[in-house]
């Protein structure tokens, strides 16, 4: 589910960075409030553990395939949602920088899709309420499976939403959702079962390591269900508000209606000021121009561009060969 940089436009990447940074800021503040100096090394070591555990394949019974752990809910169930979220950021950052698993600009999206839902929704809205009256193996299994399935579904849906808002695919939204959600349902189920198996083992061996079981923490230190929903609602409103600023870059109902009535989605303008402004806009515009589709300039520049690419490619190859020869000498 790691998104590559190519799948998002700067507006979506930036918005998701803002949302993830806000969640990270809250988490850093909460972990600082815990005042446990041993927590940071634990977060680092647990992050490395989850990374390594993701590499182990687990046989899925009844099928010929295997699955692996993702780790968001597991980290939260051990470290708590805030420290777990920060650990997941470290894991995702390592994956994107050193293993090309996810893009650097898409990191905000990946943190949101995988760490935010897994750690906050999974731990605060599912794990913690279910464990409040005391833990049992059945409860751990139910919370792990439900948490993993739900958070992976939310993450997969966010991938669809972010990709569609970036306007890089012709795939209709409904079809994209139908392609992503069922496969992640199966992945979520396997992830949930692996998480449950590990947490049940910990529950048997050292139950004191599990977070949020038995309601031993003070209520004021936690995020209640109401506060979490308010925070989530606020976050959703913020994202929708900020994203709506860039909505004009995407095909919308107005453009569609104009095309139906006037035969064009662009209003014709004339005059020196209009032409000058259009020239500046087309030169400086940093967001993708979706009006490019099927235009004369697309066809015109493509052929010459491809020829140019061929020439520059050959030139680069020759320069590289010359440089290598010089180095050998």
């Amino acid at each position, binding site marked *: 589910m*790691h998104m*590559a*940089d*190519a*799948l998002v436009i*700067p507006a979506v*990447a930036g918005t998701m960075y803002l949302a993830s940074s806000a969640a*990270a800021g809250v988490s850093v503040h909460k972990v600082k409030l815990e005042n446990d100096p*041993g927590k*940071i*090394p634990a977060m*680092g*070591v*647990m*992050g*490395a*553990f989850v990374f*390594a*555990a993701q*590499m*182990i*394949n*687990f*046989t899925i*019974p009844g099928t010929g395939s*295997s699955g692996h752990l993702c780790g968001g809910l597991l980290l939260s169930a051990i470290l708590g949602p805030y420290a777990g979220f920060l*650990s997941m950021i*470290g894991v995702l950052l390592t994956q994107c*920088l*050193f*293993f*090309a698993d*996810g*893009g*650097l*600009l898409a990191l905000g999206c990946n943190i949101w899709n995988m760490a935010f839902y897994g750690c906050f929704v999974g731990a605060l809205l599912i794990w913690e309420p279910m464990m409040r009256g005391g833990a049992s193996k059945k409860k751990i299994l139910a919370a792990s499976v439900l948490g993993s399935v739900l958070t992976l579904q939310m993450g997969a849906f966010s991938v669809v939403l972010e990709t569609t808002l970036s306007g890089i*695919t*012709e795939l209709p939204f409904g079809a994209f959702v139908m392609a992503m959600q069922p496969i992640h349902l199966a992945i979520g189920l396997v992830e949930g*079962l692996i998480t449950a198996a*590990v947490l049940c*083992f910990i529950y048997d061996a050292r139950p004191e*390591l599990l977070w949020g079981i038995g309601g031993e923490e003070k209520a004021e230190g936690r995020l209640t269900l109401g506060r979490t929903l308010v925070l989530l609602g606020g976050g959703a409103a913020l994202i929708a508000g900020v994203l709506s600023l860039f909505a004009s870059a995407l095909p919308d109902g107005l453009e569609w209606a104009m095309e139906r009535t006037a035969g064009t989605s662009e209003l014709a303008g004339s005059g020196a000021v209009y032409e000058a402004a259009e020239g500046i806009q087309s030169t400086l515009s*940093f*967001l*993708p121009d*979706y009006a*490019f589709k099927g235009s004369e300039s697309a*066809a*015109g*520049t*493509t052929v*010459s*561009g*491809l020829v*140019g*690419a*061929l*020439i*520059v490619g050959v030139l*680069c190859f020759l320069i590289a060969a010359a440089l290598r020869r010089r180095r050998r000498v």
Partner: protein
Amino acid sequence: MSRITGALREMQTIEETSSRDQWVNALHPLVKFCVTIFYLVSVISCGRYDLTRVLGLALYPFFLFEMAELSFRDALVRLRIVLPLVCIVGIFNPILDRQPAAEFLGFTLTTGLLSMLTLMAKGVLTVLSSYLLAATTPVKGICTAMRMVHIPRMIVTEFMLIWRYLSLFLGEAEKTSQAYSLRAPGQKGIAISSWGSLLGSMLLRSMDRASEVYEAMCLRGFTGDFPSVREEKIHRRDMTYLAAMGAGILFLRLVPVLSLIGGIFV
């Protein structure tokens, strides 16, 4: 080669290349970080049919790969992770969008095909530029850049710890799965009956190791920050690099260089 062995090898390659004595490696990490981000934004902000502009931006990684004497093969291997999802998203474009865009060598390029190729080119270039940053900047340098852009100390310290202990844990995971596969020959993966005990015992060992690590760090005077991660001065050559690369990328982003060159011949 198992996934774990592959990951360990990649880590080793990155460690080796990032600590080489090259002028690109010696540049200030923050400057390289800023150039990378600017390049990534420039690439992904190109229009969905703007293939030639995206291809023009390929000059930056090409130039730096040559100057830093990096292996293209090592970088291209990494595309195996990114390209599948990019392909899944882009593969439907030629089917759903068949509007003709141009003729090239007797072949009709549709807008759908053009957008798919652009998407793939973007995917390749963004991976190459991120690899450039990682392969020319040691982890300590990346942490320095992160601190200089005010990323919380807690996240930076944790990131550094993850990197430090990753090879240890990967080695342990490899030994564990190897030991399991030797006792269960021909079995693909770990059986469901062993999921909990295998990973759970690894987790418990990790937790114990975390407390040992913390005690060792305290004994060596750890106060919440690594002394090696400190702000470094930005020199004139770093600023020159920033200005030159920034201007170069901006030029490639704004001017359709390849179209202009091709226009001379077509």
